[in-house]
């Protein structure tokens, strides 16, 4: 039945296209193959894709599968002062943005973009695609648009939300996308290419920053220093200064693992589990050895799952968050969501996180007597473990290879000067209202 329908459709299409063939269009038949060949040779003006993350900025060229560069989101300004991500993204934070005039923030953004591009990619006359967080502020968008179009002289600019981009690579039409980044976790379903915003959940508690904070606390509690004379002692403030100068907290956070619930209970009760997963780690530091015991590497992620550790905020734990998203969704989708999970963001590369999420989801669903978690599955590339680092970037890169779509969706310098703003994905909603 379906094939007959398709045939009919293609016949109709054939008639539509063939009915208007003239001498000129016959000519264009032969020339369009030629022009296609030319356009595939000259991929010089392919779009520039940037994903701005709070920790890392990924940049590269459209149609490629690996970013040209992944850089830290920070730069050193002309006075030799390091400007970090908090200041670059200050416009996203309304309270912080109000402290200084918009021009000040715009200047920082333009300096950051110059730092990114004048070192490596030559961006002039190329379209830009910026992978944005769904909650990027309008001021921030406008500042980026202004910089890219006016200062970097790009051909055009377009914004793409992270969550939808990350589904492209898997060619999936139905997914629950969980983006665990350095500053926050935003999870929402993407169904048939539509970001279901009203079903979103976010938490500042589930983030790389919090893992680093936990690592610091655990290291303070359990870490030890081996002096040259063989003496062992706890850590003091000067040790932490040295640790920070080596960026060691970040390294520990990246290398931490996510253990099963049973094992976590044992650690929590103050006992040491029988089976050893990781060995004690020794880090040489200015003539003394820093001992990192296994508990520091094994338990920092417990804060994602254990509500009793969270004393600062009212954020939900990760399984609770996912469960409530599923609950909010229409009944037809509920069962399929948890078998189509996409995990992106740097934190998702941590070993054992996926199996722990599965374990917790099964438990929470059992307690609530729901059958959502019968088949928990994750989209993943087994050959590319670091995929979550640039997952959204990759999706945007695939999209960026579609020239005409990019051209249609983006705005140029002329449009910008005539007062048009970059197309926002919420425009569709606004127009419908």
């Amino acid at each position: 039945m379906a094939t007959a329908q398709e045939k009919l459709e293609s016949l109709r299409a054939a008639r539509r296209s063939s009915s208007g063939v003239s001498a000129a269009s016959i000519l264009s038949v032969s020339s369009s193959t030629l022009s296609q060949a030319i356009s595939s040779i000259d991929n010089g003006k392919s779009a520039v894709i940037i994903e701005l993350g709070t920790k890392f900025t990924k940049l590269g060229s459209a149609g490629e599968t690996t970013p040209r560069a992944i850089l830290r989101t920070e730069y050193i300004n002309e006075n030799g002062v390091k400007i970090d991500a908090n200041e670059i993204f200050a416009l996203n934070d309304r309270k912080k943005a109000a402290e200084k005039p918009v021009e000040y923030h715009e200047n920082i953004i333009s300096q950051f973009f110059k730092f990114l591009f004048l070192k490596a990619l030559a961006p002039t006359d190329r379209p830009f695609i910026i992978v944005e967080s769904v909650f990027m502020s309008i001021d921030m968008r406008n500042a980026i648009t202004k910089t890219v179009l006016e200062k970097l002289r790009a051909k055009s600019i377009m914004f793409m939300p992270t969550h939808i981009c990350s589904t492209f690579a898997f060619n999936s039409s139905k997914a629950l996308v969980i983006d665990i980044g350095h500053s926050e976790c935003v999870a929402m379903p993407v169904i048939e290419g539509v970001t279901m915003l009203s079903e979103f959940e976010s938490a500042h508690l589930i983030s790389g920053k919090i893992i680093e904070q936990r690592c610091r606390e655990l290291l303070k509690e359990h870490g030890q220093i081996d002096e040259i004379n063989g003496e062992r002692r706890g850590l003091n403030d000067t040790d932490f200064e040295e640790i920070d100068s080596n960026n060691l907290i970040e390294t520990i956070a990246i290398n931490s693992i996510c253990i099963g619930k049973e094992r976590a209970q044992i650690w929590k009760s103050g006992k040491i589990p029988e089976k050893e997963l990781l060995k004690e780690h020794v880090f040489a530091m200015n003539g003394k050895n820093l001992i990192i015991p296994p508990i520091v590497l094994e338990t920092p992620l417990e804060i994602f799952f254990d509500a009793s550790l969270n004393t600062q905020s009212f954020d939900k734990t990760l399984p609770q968050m996912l469960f409530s998203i599923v609950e909010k969704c229409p009944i037809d989708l509920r069962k399929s969501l948890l078998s189509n999970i996409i995990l992106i963001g740097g934190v998702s590369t941590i070993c054992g996180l996926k199996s722990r999420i599965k374990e917790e989801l099964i438990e929470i669903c059992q307690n609530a007597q729901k059958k959502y978690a019968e088949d928990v599955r994750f989209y993943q590339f087994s050959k590319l473990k670091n995929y979550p680092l640039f997952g959204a970037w990759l999706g945007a890169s695939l999209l960026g290879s579609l020239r005409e779509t990019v051209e249609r969706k983006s705005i140029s310098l002329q449009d910008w000067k005539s007062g048009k703003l970059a197309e926002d994905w919420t425009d569709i909603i606004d127009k419908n209202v």
Partner: protein
Amino acid sequence: MSALLQSFRVKYECSCGKFRNLSDLHFCRQCFKIKCEECACVEIDMLYCARCLEASTVPEARLKKNQCFNCVECPMCMNILSGRTENDKFFLICQACSWQTREAGIEDRDSAKKWPVYENEITNEMNDVMNHMKKLEMIQNAPKDSKNRKISKGWSAHHLPNKFGLQSMVEKKRQMMFPDLTPLSVHEPEEPLSLEEELENRYKSKNLRTADQIIRQPLASSDQPLFPVRVPLQGRTSIRCDECERTLVKRDYGVVAYKFKISAFAREYVPDIRISRPVQFENDKTSHVLLTITNLSSSPIQLKISPQEKSRDDLVECSTPPVNISIPCSIDTDTAGVPAEKSDVIVFRQHNRIGLNFDFIPNQSNEHFLALSLEYTQNGSFGLLADKSQNTEEASSKVLKANVIVQLHN
């Protein structure tokens, strides 16, 4: 040198409103405006490897993926790796952290160049997805094309016998507009690996892998050793005026060349002001500052220099009236050693340099700035304009302005 001369104490106002050192500014000869790097257009004019100094043009760099194919860095500490030979075979070693390519399991090679790097394993799969998306795009756009074209109902290639091979052309065209779309299967979601399995596969190393090591080669999974990293190319920039699009600074071809093909630095067009002696402050009493003004341009300058009124708290009040002087250019050697005329303001004249004395009353705060405005005309500097349509006479008699702020305190 700038620290020794303390040239940062005199700041010129750029046309964008920011105050900068004269050495950081450019001057557009067509717009008669001072431009800084921030308000002018900075563009990459070529890329090069900072290690082997091999230059590549922008399209070349794009093909090379912005990496040098010959030079590699240590994946651990980012220092340059150097080659060693053993039994006529090469291996690489890092002089800083003594990391070796042998540690990563790379066999010794016949050549010191071309070391293996990780390839993206999912490229083929992504290409399939990309092609699928392209087909979808074509279908989305095709009906629009056919709608735009005027439809003549009387003639259709379908009615022709396939005598002239037209039929196949039409068929081809249709194929291109509406490609056969076989749905591409979804990358199937998988069961997660257990922690034990993941840990077992994890690459065992003495050191923990840092974030910098990971982002420099994201294709190396946690179960693989790190390979030498290709050195990223760096960009060399040229500067253009943002208003008239003319080039202000362009370097000579070749990375090692230090000359400029085109250069329009502000110091060649704007009088250079410096503080000559340390400034002595006496509270609430008239103090003096000795400024030297140098004409580094190729033609004499008629200069009117006048102190600005005290508009801000940190400015000092200057009692010296505006001074009109003419400064010869450096090429004119005739004027060497002209004795200073008897004046309270002009202290000395020497070649293309003039010493001026300004009286001021220090303000109450700790910061003392002297604001000056310059009005000057140059006779010859614009005679060699690239754009002949502009009247050179008009250009030479044009009164140019510049605002300067001098920091008097240390």
